[in-house]
């Protein structure tokens, strides 16, 4: 069956089994390797994507469900040549160690900042609560998200 959707702004038409998981087609067929599979059961957030702008878990989505939709992965936010403010902030704040959780964290943070441009630390923790990191201890991640939020608001400091 042919499934059509857009991935990071580009139209995709893919002939595949509609019952395959979105995480598998994104990684294996379409090369979106920022999408990680950690747990495969919805608990770690590493496979997060934005689907029609909403944060979703690609390990719990089937290929068929992507039909007609817009998928954005971390590659779609920015790349090495033109990184996104969150990607820069994660790198600058040491919020990346092994990097496995990072794409999912960045997407969860992006989703949070779209809803709440000025989150306090607790808001950030809650916004990222579906994403597990085994390396950083989260403090630097929260710092990075707050820094990116500040920058996005135009460098104004909070309070």
């Amino acid at each position, binding site marked *: 069956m042919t499934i059509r959707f857009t991935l990071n702004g580009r139209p995709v038409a893919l002939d595949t089994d509609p*019952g395959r998981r979105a995480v598998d087609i994104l990684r294996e067929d379409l090369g979106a390797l920022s999408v990680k599979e950690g747990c495969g059961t919805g608990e770690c957030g590493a496979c997060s994507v934005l689907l029609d702008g909403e944060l979703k878990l690609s390990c719990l989505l089937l290929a068929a*469900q992507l039909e007609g939709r817009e998928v954005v992965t971390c590659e779609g936010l920015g790349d090495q040549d033109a990184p996104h403010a969150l990607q820069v902030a994660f790198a600058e704040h040491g919020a990346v160690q092994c990097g496995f959780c990072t794409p999912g964290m960045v997407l969860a943070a992006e989703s949070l900042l779209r809803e709440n441009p000025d989150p306090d630390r607790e808001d950030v923790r809650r916004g990222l609560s579906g994403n597990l990191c085994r390396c950083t201890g989260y403090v630097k991640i929260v710092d990075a998200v707050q820094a990116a939020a500040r920058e996005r608001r135009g460098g104004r400091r909070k309070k």
Partner: protein
Amino acid sequence: MTRVLLPATLPELWEALAACPEAPLLAGGTDLLVRLRARRQRPEALVGLERLAELRTIRRQGRGLRIGALATHAMIARHPLVLRHAPVLARAVSEVGGPAIRNMGTLGGNLCTASPAGDSLPALAVLEARVELLSAGGTRLLPLSEFLLGPGRAALAPGEIVGAVRVPLSADFQVQHFEKAGRRAALAIAVVSLAVLARLEKGMVAEARLAVGSAAPTVLRCPEAEEFLRGRRLTLSALERAARAVRAAVRPIDDARASAGYRRQVAGNLLLRLADL
């Protein structure tokens, strides 16, 4: 190859269900796909409900709210009608998982999974919600307590789906409380949860409704504690007595997450929080 049918209208849904009567229904998939994976099952066909826009709406209907089964936890948690008329439900669903799970998981899925730990259930129990069941043959309404039969068991007939939950706007409950005790704020399934509605008149409880989750095979109302609170103020000592009635009513189990004794203790303790309100 798995066929995934995504009907966009109810007539198309009935057709799909008639064509594939064995196909599991897929709403947000956060329970179903995890369960299928754990059993290494790959069904021949799935019927997805996500494109049925009419099941996703939240609106006023008569003297109540009608919340479509496909409404996600995230939608419900921020919906102005829910925040205004049923804040206890908004509060409860905002405790489900993390943001992505709340963007995927639906109220209908939470009900049909019928887990004793389903976070929406105690809130729906104190709201005295009714479940709207749809099939090709028509609509029927069941009180929540008749819909939930036990862990993982709901009163759905073959060919039937949950279309919506109807919440009556019966009275002004000034106290609307939900609290979940779990091991980690997000992603942790409740060890015990408690929903409370109370209507106060001159500082006295005119009506109280309590429901405990995760402490019995299904969500449990506590008529003894409700009755005890009537006519009293929500003082610590009154709440302690009511908490004793809650502890006597619950029938918790021991499992990997907590012991029965701990659950029993916490179920009562959660009530004491009302003294601070």
